[in-house]
């Protein structure tokens, strides 16, 4: 990526000016002030990032600009001034227009266009990519069908979709997530708008795909010179592309300014906290300490040559030959030492979750050995045991789930949830159970009274703590944590990881920590294994793998991660791993 110094701001550069904008949601029972007194100036040729955590009002801001706020939301006051619209180059206040009227519709898609978060569902499943792209330009320009098609092919080529002449007739479900997001971008660009609003366009994508889309957008912006308003929760992405930054919190702007000011001279305490929690994940936790010296023979888990296939489903009466089985795990081997924290990192579909579940024998591997050696017990090959014989080992090996919402039964009280493993392993005295649960809750930082409530009374972070209490209730020796922090906002992650590390040292547990986020892995883990397409492509000390990766895939993965430091922009050489062909 090449970095061109952004043009200095000039008065006549202003594309859209938002003044004192307030958007409220009146649900009949209460009024939620999603956006309150927001001011924003978007300039030509500049990328303006809106950053904030979930519920901060960033998406509603974007929708307010286009005047497409979903019901029951309403723009209560303020102006959205579009400069230089139409032939007269006059200024129109978009917020004052009828949201369904002709005038605002002629602005949408032509002067201001938008790219949405979910590439899977933001395109109609029953229309071709071409139909959806051409529709935009045919709406706004007097243009023939043939010409529109040529123009669509042209933009598809610009967003680097291979074979645009053929892809134009494809349906969205034939595309991968990254390709769909490219198609969305093409749709947004076809009328050469003055402003493109991108609402978390890369959040649903893998990190390598995200890097490609970011590079693409940056390149397109330089080429067309439009203003780009980019909404994200990821400070790394901000550092990567922003010229200006607005930080939002609970519907209000807490701070705005050029990217370097925000990163290096943040004034507002919220911005400072946000940056601190992001930077915390840039290095190893202070709690982790030096990697424990471990001798090779003190292994708690030895996984050797484990493979697992998902059988392809065969249809009745299908003439097609049976498809080869999908290899979810392909000859995976590693050793986990007692007291060690091993990270397993990979993108979606790499097999990391499957591996975690195979280790616990929640899933059955097709071949290979999984030898678990409990304290003071004979080593046992879990892969060879019949399903019923695995159960006693689940006392020693436990799991933390990714989704704090689906992993707690909403119909059981917190007490019932945490007491369940104790109960099943013979602790039946009610009073003893209560005391034990109270102790566990305290250990994970929740009050004792929490045990009489139901999970719906708790936030995501608190629920994850309840899950952790359940996991450690039996004093296990090995914990498999599957993306244990990825459902949480960034400001909560470091706390959660510190809690886990503390428990790990206190109870002398070993950890397998599965994740897609290198920052979290680096913070937590002694060693890390990189997975790609069912294989472990590289395994080693965390620092070595992160700083001096040897495998080409690891290099591309590491290079794709946006660093939360704008000074590094353009200094990392993006490496593309070519064995994977998209599409």
């Amino acid at each position, binding site marked *: 990526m090449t970095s061109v110094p952004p043009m200095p701001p000039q008065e006549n550069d202003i594309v859209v000016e938002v003044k004192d904008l307030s958007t409220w949601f009146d649900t009949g029972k209460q009024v939620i002030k999603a956006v309150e007194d927001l001011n924003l100036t978007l300039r030509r040729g500049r990328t303006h990032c809106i950053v904030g955590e979930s519920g901060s009002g960033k998406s509603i801001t974007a*929708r307010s600009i*286009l005047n*497409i706020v*979903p019901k029951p939301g309403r723009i209560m006051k303020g102006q959205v001034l579009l400069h230089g619209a139409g032939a007269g180059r006059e200024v129109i206040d978009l917020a004052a227009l009828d949201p*369904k009227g002709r005038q605002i*519709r*002629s*602005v*949408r*898609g*032509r002067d201001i*266009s*938008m790219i*949405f*978060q*979910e590439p899977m*569902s*933001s*395109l*109609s*499943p*029953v*229309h071709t990519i071409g139909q*959806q792209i051409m*529709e*935009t330009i045919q*709406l*706004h320009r007097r243009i023939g069908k043939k010409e529109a098609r040529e123009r669509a092919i042209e933009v598809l080529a610009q967003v680097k979709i291979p074979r645009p002449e053929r892809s134009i007739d494809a*349906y969205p*479900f*034939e595309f991968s997530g990254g390709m769909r997001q490219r198609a*969305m971008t093409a*749709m947004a660009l076809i009328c050469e708008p003055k402003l493109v609003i991108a609402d978390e366009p890369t959040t649903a994508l893998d990190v390598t795909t995200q890097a490609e889309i970011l590079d693409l957008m940056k390149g397109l912006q330089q080429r067309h010179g439009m203003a780009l308003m980019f909404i994200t929760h990821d400070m790394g992405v901000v550092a990567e592309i922003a010229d200006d930054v607005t930080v939002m919190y609970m519907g209000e702007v807490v701070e705005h300014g050029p990217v370097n000011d925000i990163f290096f001279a943040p004034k507002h305490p919220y911005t400072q906290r946000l940056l601190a929690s992001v930077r915390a994940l840039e290095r190893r936790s202070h709690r982790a300490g030096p990697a424990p010296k471990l001798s090779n023979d003190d292994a708690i888990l030895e996984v050797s040559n484990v493979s697992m296939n998902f059988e392809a489903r065969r*249809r*009745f*009466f*299908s*003439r*097609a030959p049976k498809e080869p089985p999908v290899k979810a795990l392909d000859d995976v081997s590693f050793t986990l030492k007692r007291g060690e924290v091993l990270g397993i990192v990979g993108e979606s579909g790499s097999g990391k979750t499957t591996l975690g579940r195979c280790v616990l024998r929640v899933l059955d591997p097709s071949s290979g050995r999984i030898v678990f050696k409990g304290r003071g017990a004979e080593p046992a090959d879990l892969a060879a045991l019949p399903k019923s014989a695995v159960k006693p080992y689940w006392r020693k090996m436990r799991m933390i789930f990714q989704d704090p919402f689906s992993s707690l039964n909403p119909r059981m009280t917190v007490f019932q949830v945490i007491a369940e493993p104790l109960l099943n392993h013979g602790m039946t005295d009610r009073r003893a159970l209560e005391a034990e649960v109270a102790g566990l809750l305290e250990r994970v930082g929740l009050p004792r009274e929490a045990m009489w409530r139901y999970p719906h009374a708790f936030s995501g972070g608190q629920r994850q703590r309840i899950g952790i209490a359940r996991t450690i209730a039996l004093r296990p020796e090995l914990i498999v944590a599957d993306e244990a922090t990825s459902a949480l906002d960034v400001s909560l992650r470091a706390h959660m990881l510190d809690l886990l590390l503390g428990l790990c040292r206190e109870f002398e547990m070993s950890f397998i920590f599965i994740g897609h986020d290198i920052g979290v892995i680096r913070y937590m883990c002694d060693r890390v294994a990189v997975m790609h397409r069912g294989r472990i492509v590289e395994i080693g000390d965390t620092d070595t793998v992160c700083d001096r990766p040897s495998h080409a895939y690891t290099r591309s993965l590491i290079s794709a991660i946006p660093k939360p430091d704008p000074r590094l922009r353009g200094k990392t050489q993006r490496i593309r791993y070519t064995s994977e062909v998209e599409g």
Partner: protein
Amino acid sequence: MLGFILRRLLWMFPSFFAVTVVAFVIIQLPPGDFVTSYAADLATSGSPADSATLDALRLRYGLDQPMVVQYFTWVGNALKGDLGMSFEYRSPVSDIIWDRLGMTTLVAFCTLAFVWLVAFPVGIFSAVRQYSIGDYVVTFLSFLGMATPSFLLALVVMYLSVEFLGYSVGGLFSPDFVNAPWSFARVIDLVQHLWIPVVVLGVAGIAALVRIMRANLLDELGKPYVETGRAKGLPETTLILRYPTRVALNPFISTVGWVLPVLVSGDVIVSSVLSLPTSGPILIQALKTQDMYLGGALIMFQCVLVLIGTLLSDILLAFVDPRIRYDN
């Protein structure tokens, strides 16, 4: 696409097989076989049949054979067009049923078309204007429609017509045309009579489909691609018709699979109230008198009719939904 249709066609064979088994079981359920009933029937009418005739009949329908053989004899005969004898009508079943089944098909498909034509726009209206007065009215009427048995509705229509029009609206033809050969005037007469059974039969289907269309469209209206369309600058009406409605159409088409059985079911009862010349009244008559070859054949063909209707809707669905078309 071709593969899909081929697979779907192949699926018809086990279905047909199962339908014939069901029909055969129903034929066999009442105690005693056909010839015993036939003999008893002749005896009561005062002209007892000689045992040679009865034995010949037994032989012809293989009634002395084990059940499985009897089944295959019956299916074999059915394939040749011999569906057995109706002792009520004293004639072969195949002579009686075709006209009637033709009328059933006509009524069922006209009703299906009517149901769709009404339910589709009303469902869209109800979803787009969610929680408006109109939506509440539509919702209440559809609940009422689902709660009213079709025969009751038919009775009410009959009652009202006699009370206020002064004549009965039953039948599919005016008396002059009942036995007349087909002509243009007869077709006109048919159309003039057809609408009443179509409306009566259609009400329950419309009510259910409006609910389905409304629910489907409400789901789709909340999908992100609708917002994409809005952000493009599409006018609201075009947007709703072109995107969410288009997507909601697909599950709507597949409702044929259960609307058609409901219609054919309803036809059986409604036609006996409105005395329509469809297969319903003779089916009920046949079942009441345990004239099982006739009853079994009618049930079998009504099932086949529904299976074919479902097949057609599945193929139609494959044409409009790329996800099915490409999923090979």
